[in-house]
């Protein structure tokens, strides 16, 4: 029952924001379902695949999905993610992470005030 609640919440969050929803699924699995961090992260990814697939289909039925744009951004991103994950094992990411967080904050503020 808890998993169903997590699923409904995550689905609404994902569709409303156009994101996978890992930011809420992972802590919910840890806190509400007693998962450890690693299984929570792995299981969340698999769930996100299903959620994003559902979101894509239901949005596409309403004509809101641009497949060409998705391919242009999504395919190089999949390659980049493999490289990024490999890089993570080799370098310290703390300073990079701070810079990245600052970049996200700047874009967030821009979207808020634009």
């Amino acid at each position, binding site marked *: 029952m808890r998993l169903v609640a*997590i*699923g*409904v919440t*995550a*689905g*609404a*969050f*994902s*569709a409303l*924001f*156009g*994101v*996978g929803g*890992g*930011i809420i699924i*992972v*802590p919910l699995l*840890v806190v509400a379902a007693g998962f450890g*961090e*690693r*299984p*929570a*992260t*792995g*299981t969340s990814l698999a*769930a*996100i*695949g*299903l*959620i*994003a697939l559902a*979101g*894509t289909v239901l*949005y596409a039925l*309403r004509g*809101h999905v*641009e497949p060409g*744009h998705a391919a*242009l*951004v*999504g395919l190089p*991103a*999949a390659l*980049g*993610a493999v*490289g*990024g*994950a490999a890089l*993570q094992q080799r370098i310290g990411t*703390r300073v990079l992470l*701070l810079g*990245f967080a600052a970049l996200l*904050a700047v*874009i*967030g*503020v*821009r*979207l*808020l*005030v634009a």
Partner: protein
Amino acid sequence: MTTVVIALAAGLAAGVAAGLFGIGGGILFVPVLTLGLGLSQLEGEATSLLAILPTVAAGTWRQHRYGNVRWRTALVIGVAALAGVEVGIRIAEALPEDTLRRLFGALMLVVAAQLFWSATRRGNRFGELGR
């Protein structure tokens, strides 16, 4: 042509960041699609969900090989999410474009704050989120 190059470069950069920092791609794809490629906020969000699928599939495969995926749990969450997805889309469609964009901007600030928090502490970041 310029747009294609921007999209490919931004996609690659977003993927590297996602892999490097362990975050999803969507939080980056949406601004790339809206600010970079000129989609509306609603189209950008809808298209982002398709764009994250290859990255998520690759990540899931890796996590599966590490033995970190509990498939039954993922399946229950995924099926239950269908109802939530429908609700989320209706809300997104009903909201004015400006409001949807500002909501997304606020989400980016939350993610940024979470990353700052994790960068300034040792240990895992996801475990801390729930405390």
